[in-house]
């Protein structure tokens, strides 16, 4: 499973514009597995993405929309995508502002199948 997960994260990083892919614990933002380009700090990405996911979850519940499944934060110079991977896990893709979010999302779904 570890080799499959590494392959799945590696496939995510081959999507255009993706700088890194990570599997993290949702509650504390600790990294479980990662494949990131040089210069990307996995611990920071994991902690911030998990925190954003938690806060977004509270807001989503408050609106009656329920539990978030996928987040997409678009910045002027970069993109962050976070997907719930079940069992208290989050799958994260971080990349440039031109990151192909659609393809990244497909690879994230494939990666989740490996996690499950």
């Amino acid at each position: 499973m570890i080799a499959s997960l590494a392959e799945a994260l590696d496939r995510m990083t081959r999507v255009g514009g993706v700088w890194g892919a990570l599997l993290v614990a949702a509650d504390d933002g600790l990294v479980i597995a990662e494949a990131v380009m040089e210069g990307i700090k996995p611990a920071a990405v994991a902690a911030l993405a998990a925190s954003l996911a938690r806060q977004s979850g509270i807001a989503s519940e408050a609106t009656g929309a329920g539990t978030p499944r996928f987040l997409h934060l678009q910045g002027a110079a970069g993109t962050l995508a976070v997907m719930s991977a079940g069992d208290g896990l989050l799958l994260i893709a971080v990349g440039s502002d031109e990151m192909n979010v659609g393809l990244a999302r497909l690879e994230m779904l494939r990666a989740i199948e490996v996690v499950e």
Partner: protein
Amino acid sequence: MMIDELTSLVDEYLRSPRSLAFIDLAERLRREGRLEAAVRVALTGLEHHPTLSAAYDMYARILMDIGDLDRAETIWRELLEREKRHVGALTGIGGLYARKGDYDSALDHLERALSVDPADPAVVQALMRVRRAAEDAEGDATSAPASEQTLFRGLDGAGRGMLLADRHGQMLGGRLETPAGDEVSEPAAAHVASVAREATRTADILGLGPWLWLTIEAAAANLHLSAPDGRSLLLVVRDRSMPAGRLARLAERAAETARGWLGEQVL
């Protein structure tokens, strides 16, 4: 283009941090709603230029955006003690009075500012806004709530799935209901302000640039959060049948409407 301009301002500031470049950079950061960064740049600049009126005026505007009206007013009054005809200070104090609903004092200060610089577009626009607000206040005390209810009128789902809040989580307009029909506007406004702060922090630290929008696909609905301007937040919520691209376009139309409405408000 906007990013290039900001980068250029940052570069200029970093090349010569003791120059006056900090004024344009702090003002730009203020307009983008990056108020903590704006304060840092302003205070650093004031250390090097402790007598520069323009810098104090700019710092007071940042404080006003933060909501620290008392300190903003103190700075502008000190400026007016030194320069009785300082246009920025007169305009700023006019805006403060308008916020408090004291339109007579607001108009008095703004008209004094206009007499100093009749061509200053910021003064002219502020004066027009305050005059309209004063007329509305005289004519109909309930005009503000009516504006809030009709803010997004004409847009799909305006009465139940669009919310405008300030950066502190205070409701400005719109209405949000759960899929079951319960109104949740005020708690949702408070929560989206927290999400926006987290988004700002995340984007800053990860080098993603200023965040433009956040979409949340949830079990029962999709949410789209954006910042129509540096001081407000817009949340659009639709059921999951609306594709993300269409939701984004709807949110952009709502943001345009919100910007228009905000521009008509008092300072």
